[in-house]
């Protein structure tokens, strides 16, 4: 029987193409155009070539924000991934308690970003906040709006509080998908708890953990609302991450050209990291399937 080639299915892709064009491609083209020009408002632009890129690449401000951003992402991954796994391992396996745990773990994920920032802003206040007041009563000097270390600690705690449950839920899903035969085999071999985790659970969770790391890294690398509401990027520039700096430049100073160049460099870094993660994930999946 001869196969009939029917290319009409391509028409179904058109709506998505139009949507992507309007939401991504056209804005991206505009940003590229802006990044090579200067504007004084009134939709008038002047060609400046690579000037903004040169200025930014030699700017201490950008490199400092980049360093802070990498450090932040590194710290939160270091805390959230092991903590999420630990929470998932401690969660009940079945029954009513498991359902309650799942609902409770999902709650922080449902709270809007700006509300999370506001909650922690109040929570950390030394006069009325539970955390701030408790630390003050214990004689610990804590003020996230004036001390850079306190601001960092609060931003990290806030992110851990908000997002560890995502890692926990993903890990839990990974754990639930392990066939019971593996545990039975481990029992026959009299494997200890650590061996079960190291040789069964961790390898079987690798796929979901890669997704968790990718999601958390990308999200933390683009973090804006929570630290902006909590500290406004301060004290000084202590918690000014890349996106906060970018918004200050684009909307605060209305420097469209430099902000566009900044956005493109930011985008390139994110694209590179996403591609590396994606490739590692796909390669790991293929190796797993070939075993």
């Amino acid at each position, binding site marked *: 029987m001869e196969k009939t080639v029917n290319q009409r299915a391509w028409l179904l892709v058109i709506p998505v193409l139009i949507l992507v064009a309007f939401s991504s491609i056209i804005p991206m083209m505009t940003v*590229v155009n802006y990044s090579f020009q200067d504007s004084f408002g009134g939709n008038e632009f002047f060609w400046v070539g690579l000037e903004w890129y040169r200025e930014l690449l*030699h700017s201490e401000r950008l490199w400092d924000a980049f360093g802070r951003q990498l450090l932040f992402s590194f710290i939160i991954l270091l805390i959230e991934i092991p903590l999420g796994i630990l929470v998932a391992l401690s969660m009940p396996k079945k029954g009513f308690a498991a359902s309650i745990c799942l609902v409770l773990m999902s709650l922080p994920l449902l709270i809007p970003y700006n509300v999370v920032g506001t909650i922690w802003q109040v929570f950390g206040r030394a006069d009325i906040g539970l955390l701030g007041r408790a630390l003050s009563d214990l004689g610990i000097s804590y003020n996230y709006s004036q001390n850079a270390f306190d601001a960092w600690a609060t931003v990290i705690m806030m992110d851990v509080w908000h997002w560890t449950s995502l890692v926990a839920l993903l890990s839990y899903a990974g754990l639930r998908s392990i066939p019971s035969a593996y545990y039975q085999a481990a029992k026959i071999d009299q494997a200890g708890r650590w061996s079960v985790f190291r040789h069964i659970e961790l390898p079987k969770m690798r796929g979901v953990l890669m997704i968790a790391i990718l999601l958390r890294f990308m999200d933390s690398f683009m973090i804006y609302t929570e630290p902006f509401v909590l500290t406004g990027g301060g004290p000084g520039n202590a918690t000014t991450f890349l996106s906060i700096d970018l918004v200050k430049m684009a909307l605060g100073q209305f420097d469209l050209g430099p902000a566009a160049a900044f956005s493109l460099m930011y985008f390139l870094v994110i694209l590179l990291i996403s591609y590396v993660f994606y*490739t590692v994930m796909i390669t790991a999946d293929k190796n797993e399937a070939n075993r």
Partner: protein
Amino acid sequence: MEWMAWTLPTALFFVTIALTLAGMSLLHLKYPGTPRTGILGIETMRGDRLFISLLGSGFINLAWIGLTDASQYGALVICGLFAFCVFRWV
């Protein structure tokens, strides 16, 4: 379209990218490639190698701007060499 602040160099850049993508698609239809594992140890098709070349070229251009004051055409030559190496060995 005025709000998009088009200029000839940026328009040429996008036209080049669009033509490259179209060319690669046609090439794939005419001569479908097979995945291969190169020096990076990952399976790549022609499209992957083009993506790696373009992404790498972005960083090469940025590094050139940040590290030298020389003409950007120097970076273009390095990008060409980089793309050749990627298509040949990756």
